[in-house]
């Protein structure tokens, strides 16, 4: 053991994508090898196909290539169902129950299924996720794409749906994150885009250790960078354990399918 923390990576992807670096192994075996090398206990991989190609085919790929296990908790890509390209919410929940899936991921990219959090489309889906306390990781491609006006109706309207926000880079966003954290308990931020010096300690001082989750953004980033950021942050060991994985484990445990 190279460190005492039991990391659970809520933000990683496997499967084919357009632009892997030379020699990169995007298979589950490649992810597990990296986890073993660095000492990451568990991970919630999504399929990059969900971002680049099609959400449901991404989930089928994940089913075939990364079934749930003690260390791997697959994260399905989610989308809206109105065009028939993706199952309606109750069918989705039934499939999640059947396949042991407890985390969903929504890509908001200009080239993904959804390019923004267009709230009227998502109501039925969020009703179903909140009913079963399913956490939703919202992966935004642009740090300035989301604001309090986009997120407050979601976390206020569906308080039983934990929302994990993943930004490529945290810039002005903290001004509205602090506003939302002062008011709501179901908003979380993952770490790979939050790179500011002393930032983990500052958020923990203000809001406690329950708002941040370890994620790596593997394979695009090395998981080591966020691991070291947490290991060397000036917060106590209990908080480090929460951020490294215990909070995410609790969120997965609280899912009621």
């Amino acid at each position: 053991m190279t460190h005492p923390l039991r990391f659970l990576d809520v933000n990683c992807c496997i499967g084919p994508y357009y632009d892997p670096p030379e020699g990169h192994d995007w298979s589950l075996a490649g992810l597990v090898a990296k986890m073993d090398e660095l000492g990451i206990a568990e991970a919630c991989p999504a399929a990059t196909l969900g971002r680049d190609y099609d959400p449901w085919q991404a989930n089928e790929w994940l089913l075939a290539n990364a079934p749930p296990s003690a260390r791997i908790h697959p994260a399905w890509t989610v989308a809206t169902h109105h065009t028939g390209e993706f199952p309606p919410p109750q069918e989705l929940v039934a499939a999640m129950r059947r396949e042991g899936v407890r985390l969903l991921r929504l890509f908001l990219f200009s080239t993904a299924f959804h390019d923004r959090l267009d709230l009227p489309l998502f109501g039925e889906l969020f009703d179903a996720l909140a009913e079963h306390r399913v956490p939703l990781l919202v992966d935004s491609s642009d740090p300035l794409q989301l604001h309090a006006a986009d997120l407050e109706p979601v976390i206020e309207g569906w308080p039983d749906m934990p929302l994990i926000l993943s930004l490529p880079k945290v810039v002005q966003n903290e001004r509205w994150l602090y506003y939302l954290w002062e008011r709501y308990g179901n908003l979380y931020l993952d770490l790979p885009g939050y790179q500011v010096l002393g930032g983990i300690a500052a958020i923990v001082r203000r809001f406690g250790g329950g708002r941040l989750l370890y994620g790596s953004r593997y394979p695009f980033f090395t998981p080591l960078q966020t691991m070291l950021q947490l290991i060397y942050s000036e917060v106590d060991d209990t908080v480090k354990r929460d951020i490294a994985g215990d909070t995410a484990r609790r969120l997965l445990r609280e899912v009621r399918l």
Partner: protein
Amino acid sequence: MSLLAKAMLAGKGLPDVLVIDFHVHLASKWNTMNVPVCDSDEMLRLAKGAGVDALVVNGCIWPDLHQANDMVGALLARNRGKVVGLAALNPHQMDMTAEAHRCFDELGMRGVKLHIMHQTYHSPRPFSSYGREWERLFAYLSERRAPVLYHGFVTEEMISAWPDVPFVCAHGVGDVSGMERLARYPNFHVDTAATQNVAGCVDVAVGLLDPERVLWGTDAPLDDFAQRLGVVLDSHLEEPALRQVLGRNAARLLGLPAR
């Protein structure tokens, strides 16, 4: 995984490695993000905790660059051996060569920082129109063999024309096409101070430029020391190359003792 990465993961830092952060700003507030560490002494304390030996600090964010350079000078006077200063220069505000002279000879700085953010849509004229001023500055830096950390503006023509000036492209480790284009100039370097460093970027940069021309940098206090160490440590570099990137290259460019 390298022994250095193992040591960092075990919380031991890098005690036998010279670690110099080539890209650091005076700790201060900034409009575009919430900066928790606004005190440079606090930043130095955090750097030490992450195993960083010295910070190469510039004051380019504070709009009055004369004053910013004075603040960097005061910081390095209080922290000899732990802080190295770069003079922040801007042709709209000063005779750049005279200011570089003052910063080097009176304040003890060892290089220059140029940032394209000083050229805004309100600028009275573009940076590039100060032709003679740039010539005088680079001639002066060439005599001193003093490095330039630049974010934007510096051109291939400048790098080619002033071979004795080490140019370090801020955040350049992610710009593969730029590295490919400029690799043939031995005075072209890059640093690692970028938020979107993709996995393997340091291997790619070293492959294009050799280990001598890649420098570890963070952009602190906007970014975290340990986080940026992870970018370099999870590479396939052998330990001698890692040591070059982490500190020896900066020491060489700045005329500092290496270990």
